[in-house]
């Protein structure tokens, strides 16, 4: 399984101190809770480690680390085991929280940190593109969201109004 190589590599990067914590997001993350979702890339949220003596964090150590292991770079992607992988610093407080509260899975002996279902749903709501709304509906239909946890995240990140609009538009057949 090629994607398992991606997971192994990311764990090794963490063990070698290249990144702090990480969490798989996007379609691959959603696949841990839903049916497999066809995707062309792997989104990994990472907390970059600041280099000694530098205030700003840089992805350069990560790029150098993977390049030394034969991974090629194309645009914003680093290719690991033929999968284009995007390493993303958390762009919003919601994703920062998702990174901290990621869930641990075991993939045939490889420990894997994945964004929680509720955070993935809230990130989809926050992004709000048609494909994100479709994914949010998948999460609801699959019944994998814990209501209390979801409500708490929505409230903390000021997404309750957006959620209500989504409910009216898609779940009550109005709007």
């Amino acid at each position, binding site marked *: *399984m*090629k*994607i*398992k190589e991606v997971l192994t590599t990311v764990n090794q990067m963490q063990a070698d101190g290249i990144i702090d914590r990480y969490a798989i997001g996007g379609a*691959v993350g959603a*696949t*841990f*809770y*839903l*049916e*497999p*979702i*066809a*995707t*062309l890339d792997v989104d990994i949220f990472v907390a970059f480690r600041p280099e000694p003596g530098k205030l700003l964090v840089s992805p350069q150590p990560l790029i150098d680390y993977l390049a030394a292991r034969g991974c090629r770079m194309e645009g914003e992607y680093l290719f690991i085991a033929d*999968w284009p992988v995007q390493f993303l610093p958390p762009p919003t407080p919601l994703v920062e929280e998702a990174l901290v509260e990621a869930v641990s*899975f075991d*993939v*045939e002996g490889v420990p894997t940190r994945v964004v929680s279902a509720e955070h993935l749903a809230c990130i989809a709501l926050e992004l709000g593109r048609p494909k994100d709304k479709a994914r949010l509906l998948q999460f609801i239909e*699959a019944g994998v969201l814990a209501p209390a946890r979801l409500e708490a995240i929505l409230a903390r990140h000021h997404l309750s109004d957006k959620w209500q609009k989504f409910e009216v538009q898609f779940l009550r057949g109005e709007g």
Partner: protein
Amino acid sequence: MTLQLLEILQSKQALRRRLTVLPIAEKLRLLDELRERSQTIGISRAQRHAAVERPAIPPTFVDAVR
């Protein structure tokens, strides 16, 4: 196989439920396969476009008499 829309939708939902509860490793294996399939489709599509867009070579006298 049926052409009844309701049955089709129900069977799709049942398939999705079956896929959802597969072991994680199995679902990730399917992601690998889905990606390979998308790439194959993409390559064949690109080749078709290239074939369509390639300017036609005007037949020469030599071609005509071959």
